C-alpha cells in the first residue's frame, strides 16, 4: 500500500541510466534496417565479384524479381501482424487457398474482378477466424495459425480435386501480370511500391504507431487508450489479405492453381523477414524496408548459388545461419533474452 505510483516513478527515474538522445544519422546506422542493409550490400558485392557485372544486369534482376513478387507482397502485409505481436503462420496456405478459389471462379467464367473480390472476401473471413481464436480467446498465435495452416491446406487439396490443379488461363490477366516495364517485371515494381507504402504507414500514420505500440507492450498500449484487440484484429486481417493478393498473382503468373501452391512459403517469408529485422516472438520491431531487403538478400544468395550451379540446399544452410545471426543481433539490440 505504501507503493504509490508516485514513489514508483520517482525510484525508477533515479535508477535510469544515461540514454543517448535520438539522432537521425545514428539511428540509421544502428537501427534495425542498418544490419540488413549491410548484409544486402555484402551479397551484392559477393555477386559482383564472383559472377561479374551480369549479376546486376536487367535480365538477371528481372528473373529474380519475378520469383520475388509474391513473397514481397505477402511479406509486406504479414509484417503488420508481426509488428502487432501476432505472428500469422497461415499466410503460405492462404496463398494456396486463394489461388485455388480465384482459379475456380476464373475457370467458371466469372471474370477477373468478381473472382478477386470473392477471393479477398474469403481471406477476410480466414483472417477473422484467426483473430477470433487469437484475440478473442487468447490462443497462442503460433499454435493457432499452425492449425489454420493445416486446415486450409487440406481444403486447398480438396478444392483442387483429383487433377491436383485447377487450370485458369485468362489471356488478358496473364499478359497484365507478366508485363515488363523498363526491363523489369511490372508487378515487381508494384511490390516494391507496396513495400514503400507499408513503410510509410508504419512510420508516419496513426495505425503504424498503434501497431508498434501494441506489439511492443500491449498493457502500456491499452493504458494509453489504444484498442489492443482492434489493432491486432486489423493486423491479422491485413496479413490474410496479403496472402490473398499473393494467391491471385500466382494464378496470373502460372495460369493455374495447384494443391501445393504456396507450400512452405511462410517459412521462406518469415526467415527472410527475421533476417530483415522483424521478430516472430515479440512485436514492435522491424520495418517493411528491412523485411524487403531480407527477402532480396536471401534471393540474391540463392541466385548466386544458382548461377554457380551449386546445390540449392546450401541456400537453406546459409539462410539458417543468417537467421541465427540476425536473432542474436536482435537480442544484443535489446530483444528478449531467453534463459
Amino acid at each position: 500500500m505504501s507503493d504509490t505510483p508516485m514513489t514508483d516513478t520517482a525510484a525508477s527515474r533515479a535508477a535510469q541510466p544515461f540514454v543517448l538522445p535520438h539522432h537521425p544519422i545514428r539511428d540509421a546506422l544502428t537501427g534495425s534496417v542498418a544490419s540488413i542493409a549491410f548484409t544486402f550490400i555484402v551479397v551484392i558485392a559477393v555477386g559482383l565479384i564472383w559472377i561479374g557485372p551480369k549479376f546486376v544486369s536487367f535480365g538477371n534482376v528481372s528473373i529474380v524479381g519475378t520469383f520475388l513478387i509474391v513473397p514481397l507482397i505477402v511479406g509486406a502485409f504479414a509484417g503488420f501482424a508481426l509488428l502487432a505481436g501476432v505472428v500469422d503462420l497461415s499466410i503460405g496456405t492462404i496463398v494456396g487457398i486463394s489461388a485455388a478459389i480465384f482459379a475456380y471462379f476464373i475457370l467458371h467464367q466469372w471474370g477477373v474482378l468478381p473472382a478477386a473480390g470473392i477471393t479477398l472476401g474469403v481471406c477476410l473471413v480466414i483472417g477473422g477466424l484467426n483473430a477470433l481464436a487469437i484475440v478473442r480467446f487468447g490462443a497462442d498465435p503460433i499454435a493457432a495459425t499452425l492449425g489454420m495452416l493445416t486446415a486450409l491446406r487440406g481444403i486447398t487439396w480438396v478444392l483442387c480435386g483429383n487433377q491436383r490443379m485447377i487450370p485458369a488461363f485468362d489471356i488478358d490477366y496473364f499478359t497484365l501480370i507478366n508485363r515488363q516495364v523498363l526491363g523489369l517485371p511490372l508487378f515487381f515494381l508494384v511490390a516494391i511500391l507496396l513495400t514503400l507504402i507499408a513503410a510509410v504507414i508504419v512510420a508516419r500514420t496513426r495505425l503504424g504507431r498503434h501497431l508498434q505500440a501494441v506489439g511492443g507492450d500491449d498493457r502500456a498500449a491499452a493504458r494509453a487508450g489504444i484498442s489492443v484487440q482492434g489493432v491486432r484484429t486489423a493486423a491479422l486481417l491485413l496479413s490474410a489479405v496479403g496472402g490473398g493478393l499473393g494467391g491471385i498473382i500466382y494464378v496470373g503468373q502460372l495460369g493455374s492453381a495447384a494443391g501445393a501452391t504456396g507450400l512452405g512459403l511462410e517459412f521462406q517469408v518469415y526467415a527472410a523477414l527475421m533476417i530483415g529485422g522483424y521478430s516472430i516472438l515479440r512485436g514492435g520491431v522491424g520495418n517493411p524496408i528491412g523485411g524487403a531487403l531480407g527477402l532480396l538478400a536471401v534471393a540474391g544468395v540463392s541466385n548466386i548459388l544458382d548461377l554457380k550451379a551449386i546445390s540449392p540446399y546450401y541456400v537453406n544452410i546459409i539462410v539458417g545461419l543468417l537467421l541465427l545471426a540476425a536473432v542474436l543481433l536482435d537480442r544484443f539490440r535489446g530483444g528478449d533474452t531467453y534463459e
Partner: protein
Amino acid sequence: MTLDRAIDAMPAATPLRLRLEGWGTPITLLVVWLLLIAATGLYRPDFFAHQTVLAIAFTMSITGVLAIGQGIIGISGGFIDLSQPACLILSGLVAVRLSEAGLPLAVVFAGAIIVGMAWGALNAAIVVAAKLNPVIVTLATNFIGLAALYLVFQLAQVPNDSEIYHMGRARFLGLPVIWWPMLVLIVIVGYLVHYTRFGRRMTAVGGNRFAAKARGISLKTTRFATFMAAGGFVGFAAVLFASAAGPFNPSSAITLQLSVIAAVILAGISLAGGRGSFWMLLLSVGFLSTIPTSLVFFGLSSDNQSIFQGTLLMIAVAIDGYRARRGSP
C-alpha cells in the same frame, strides 16, 4: 532444503472440485474418441476389424514417441521443438546405416538414441549459450539440418530381412511390436514427470523459470537435460520410423510434425510450460491416429484429414488460451 521440499512435494490436500475439474479434458477426449469410433462403426460395420486396429496402432507408435519428446520440451517451457523432423531423419539414417553394417538391434537403438541426444544437446547449447528462444533456434537448426541431410542422401531404407526390418512387421498380442514400446514409454514418462524430483523441477522451470531459479534450480542444467531427453525419444522414434516406414527421404518426416504438436496440445500439455499430463497423450494420440482411418471408411480422401486435424488444433489452442486467461487450471 525446506524450500526445495516445498517444490518437490505434492500439495497435501486438493479441494474435491479442483480434483474433479482436472478430469474434464480426459473425459471429453475419451467421449469424442468413442463417438468417432461408434459413428464410423455404425456407418461401416467392417470398421471393427483387426486391420483397422493395426493401421491405427502403426500411426500411434511413431507419433506417440515423438509426442513424448515434444511434451518434455513444452512442459519445461521450451515451447515447441521445430527441429524434430531433422532429428528424426538424422537418427533414422544412422539406424539404417548401422543395420546395413549388420549390427544387432540393440546397437542400432543405442546409436540412434545417442545421435538424437547429441542433436538435442546441440539445440540446448545454442539456446543456453546465445540465450535465444528455442522456437527460433529449432526452426533454424531444422532448416540447416534438413538441407545438410539432402546433401548426404536422397533415399534410405533398412535392408530387407534384417532384424530391424522384421521388427517393423512383427506382431505381439495382435498389435504391432513397435506399438508396445510407445505404450510403455508414455506410462513410464508420465510417472517420472509427476512423481520424481527431476520431473517436478522440469515442470517448475516451465511454469515460472524465475521462481524456479530463485529456488536454486539450475536453468542451464534443466535445459540441457530436457533437450537431450527429448532428442533421445526422437532417436528412439527414428528406429521405429525406419523399421516401419519403408524408403524415406529427408522430407518424409515433415508431415508428422503437425500431428505431434496437435497431440501434445490436445493432451492439455501447455505450450507455455508448467502444466500437463503425459498419460493424456495415449488418448490424444489414439484419437488423432483414428481420424485418418475413419475418414477412409467414410469414403473421404486422406486430403480431408488435415482439415479435421487443423480445425481440432485451433479449437484446442483457443480453449487452452481461454482457460489460461481465466486463470483456472
